[in-house]
Structure formats: C-alpha cells, structure tokens
C-alpha cells in the first residue's frame, strides 16, 4: 500500500520551473531516497509534501489525506527534519521538545515520558537543560530527529539530513533511523546528494534532475538499467557531468552574516 502518492506535480516560480510534472509513490514502511544534484527540485518537492509550499498543479496524497485540501490531517501524519536547523537557539533542548509536543497536541501525561525516551535515544538527555545555541551541528541534528519523532509520525521526511555531519554522527544517525524503520515501521523519505548513502540505506531510489525524475528503482535496478557497475556511474550517466549552479538565496546570505557576527 502506498503511503505517499504524487501525481503530475509541478511547481513554477515565476518563469522558472523547479519541479516539472513528476509522479511517484512510496510504499508504507519503505526507506525511499530522492537523489539529485544541487537545485534539482528535491527540497521543493519536500516542501510541497509537507504543506509549506502549494503546488502549481498536480496532486499529492499522504497517508490517505489530500495534502492541499486537508493540510492539518497531513501535518499529524508526518515529521520532518529540515535541511537547515529549525530549532530555537535561545531555548533548551527540553523546551524545544516541549513546544513541539504542545503544537502537536501530545497529551501532558505522555509528553514527559516520551520526551525523556527520545532524548535518551539520541543521547541528549544529559544535555536537556542546555541552550541549543551551545550545541554542535551533530547534536542539533539529533535533537531535530528526536523532535520529528515526538508525535509518532507515520512518515519521517529528512531533507539532506547528513549535510555537514562527520562520518561518526552520520553513521550513528542512520543506524537508529534504520532501527526505527524496522521496529516501528516508520516510512522514511530522505533527500541526499551522497550517492553511497542512498545506495546503502534506501530500499528504493528516485534520481531527480532539473525538476524531473530521470530514473527510479532499487540501486541494482538503476545499475542494470544504465549498464553501469556502480550507482555513482549510473548517476553521472543519468544526470550528466556539468556542475550545477545554485543561487545563493537571501536565507543563506543572512546566515553567513549571522555567523560572521556571532561569537562562535
């Protein structure tokens, strides 16, 4: 049974088409990867699936809810770890979890217990009363994963979750995401441009480029289809070798300035 069903999805920003008529589906309990170069339309697709952007055309079904028509139904069904941090730096780890629990209507009785359990799971329980701004990148990511799981979502979206993490943290993170997937049956949908990551973790991969899905299937299917020996070769064969330009958004520019001004 598919938990995500996307049909003829298109997103245009003025005259630029970020996502161009894509269709795909993700099965329940699957680990699904969106693999593509910079600016391919991965994040835009995730934003549309998670109600942050409305599509120009096409339909999106998530856990039997129409994403556009019943945004609140959909919002209960998924958790998301964004590409860039979305924690409140001025609050503690525990407070960030608490706000999330209230926003998702997690009952007060279960709240405390579940927050403890999840913070222990990502090994941050001892740091629960520290302000998030004192955390390293890896710790923030772990906290975001814990937070994304707090309301027991059926689908967990991860947008480039391992960007900027060291191999140890990355490994650790995938280990417990796999565990979660096996034990709790949570569907995991992630985007990445690390090829080995998609190959090692995902049950199925869709390669996306210039807003369209150029191929999809298991890693071995992709290799057979392109008559290559490794997924990397398959990827390059499908998406070409030109280096992609990605415009610096105002957000990135701001963040750079912020870094330059902050003490650490």
């Amino acid at each position, binding site marked *: 049974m598919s938990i995500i069903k996307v049909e003829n999805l298109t997103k245009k920003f003025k005259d630029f088409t970020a996502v161009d008529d894509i269709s795909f589906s993700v099965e329940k309990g699957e680990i699904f990867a969106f693999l593509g170069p910079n600016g391919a339309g991965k994040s835009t697709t995730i*934003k549309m699936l*998670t*109600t*942050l*952007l*409305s599509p120009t055309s096409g339909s999106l079904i998530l856990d039997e809810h129409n994403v556009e028509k019943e*945004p*609140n*139904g959909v*919002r*209960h069904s*998924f958790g*998301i770890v*964004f590409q*860039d*941090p*979305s*924690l*409140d*730096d*001025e*609050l503690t780890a525990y*407070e960030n979890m*608490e*706000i*999330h629990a*209230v*926003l*998702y*209507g997690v009952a007060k009785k279960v709240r405390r217990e579940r927050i403890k359990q999840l913070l222990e799971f990502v090994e941050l329980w001892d740091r629960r009363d520290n*302000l998030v701004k004192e955390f390293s990148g890896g710790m923030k990511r772990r906290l975001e994963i814990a*937070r994304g799981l707090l309301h027991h979502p059926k689908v967990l979206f991860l947008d480039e979750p391992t960007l900027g993490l060291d191999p140890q943290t990355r490994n650790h993170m995938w280990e417990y995401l796999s565990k979660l997937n096996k034990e709790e049956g949570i569907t995991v949908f992630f985007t990445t441009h690390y090829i080995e990551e998609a190959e090692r973790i995902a049950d199925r991969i869709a390669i996306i480029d210039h807003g369209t899905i150029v191929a999809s299937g298991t890693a071995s299917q992709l290799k057979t289809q392109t008559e290559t020996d490794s997924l990397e070769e398959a990827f390059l064969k499908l998406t070409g070798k030109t280096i992609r330009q990605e415009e610096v958004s*105002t*957000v990135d*520019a*701001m*963040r750079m300035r*912020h870094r330059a001004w902050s003490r650490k």
Partner: protein
Amino acid sequence: MNIIYILWLRQLKRYLRSKSRVFGSLAQPLFFLLALGFGFGPVFSKAGQGNYIEFLVPGIISMTIIFTSIFSGMEIIWDKQFGFLKETLVAPVSRFNIMIGRTLGGATIATMQGTLVLFLSLIAGFRPVSWGLVPIAILVMFLSSLLFTALGTAIASKLDDMQGFQMIMNFLVMPLFFLSGAIFPLDRTTILGAIASFDPLSYTVDALRHLLTNVHFFTLARDLSILSILTVVFLLVGSYFFSKVQI
C-alpha cells in the same frame, strides 16, 4: 489555548534570557528622557508650558512601546531566516493561533518595557498625577503594544530579510514617533497638528499623558476607541498576511 500560551511563553523566555536586550532597549529611552528633558526643560518652562519632564515621560513611554513592539513583530523575519518558523508552520495548528500567540508575547514584552521606563522616570523626578490611574495607563500600553506588534507582524510577513528592517525603522517608525506629539505639544492650527491626528501613536501618547499627567489634546474616549479599532484592524491584516507566508 495551549498553543497560544506556549508561543507567548517562548517570546518571553527569549526576551528575559537576553539581558543585553532588556538593558539595551532601556538605554535609548533613558537617553532621550535625560538629554531632551534636561536640555529643553528651561526653554519649555520659559515658553510658559510648565515642566518638560512631566510632559515628556508619556511620550518616551510611547516611544519605547512602538520601538519594542514593531521590533518584536518583526522577529518573524529572524525566525524565517533561522528556521524556527518552519517548525511552527508544519505543525497541525491554525496560523491564526500562531500569530496571536506571538503577538501577545511581543505585546507583553513591550508593555513590560514601557512600565520599566515609567518607573525609571521616577528617578528623573516624574510623579504620576494619581497612582490609581497607573494600572489603567499600563492597560493602554498593552493595547498600543498589541497594535504595533500586529503591525510589525504584518510588515514582516511581507519581507524576506533584515535589509528591509532599517527602511521600516526610518520611514515608518521614526515618522510615527516624531509626528505623534511625543516630544512637543500639538497645535490644532498647524499642519503638524492635523497630521498627528492620522498617527496612531498620537493616541497612545495622548491617552498616557491624560492618565499620567492629566493633560490632553484629544479626549480619552476618542483615544481608546481609535486605538481599539486599529488594534483589531491590524490583528486581522497581520494574521491575513501571516497566513499567506510561504517559505
């Protein structure tokens, strides 16, 4: 209700934890009060207008309120940039509640700042005409804070980065402040006096001056009804713009 409360609490915690913000935003009104108050005081009394500090304090409180409120409303831009806004926008709650929670938080902070300035002005020799009216003055501060926080939210919903912030400060907040009669008496026979009646801050200044020093330009009833109507209007406009925010 819970959602409004937790977002209100978040604003407050952020504010109280940032000591530099608390003290930093008190410094400006204090400088204005001391420099203008003691600088223009003699001229003011020579012109037969009485005690300038007494005249100035309600104006400086109003200034604190408009600056803090607009700034709090515009904090949305920071949340947009540093991601926290996304966390609230993907949650299964109405955008209206998110906006109300934030606005109440910002307005509470601005009211606290305004009240602090009122108490600090006691050091400069200010005495309210009746202590019994001070709580009502604080309510007026809260009403005005809601108004300007909602205005800040409305503007910030339309902006993508902090570049626009300076422009809003210079072309909106400063004129609102200078035209409001906060630092000089209004006069019906001048153009300035006529313009002031279109400035919402004029009504904050006037209501506070009325309640704290028993001097007024408009009537208290007019002040309060205009402030209330504008607060409702800006809350509606702000939540409409906020509901349209896409990231």
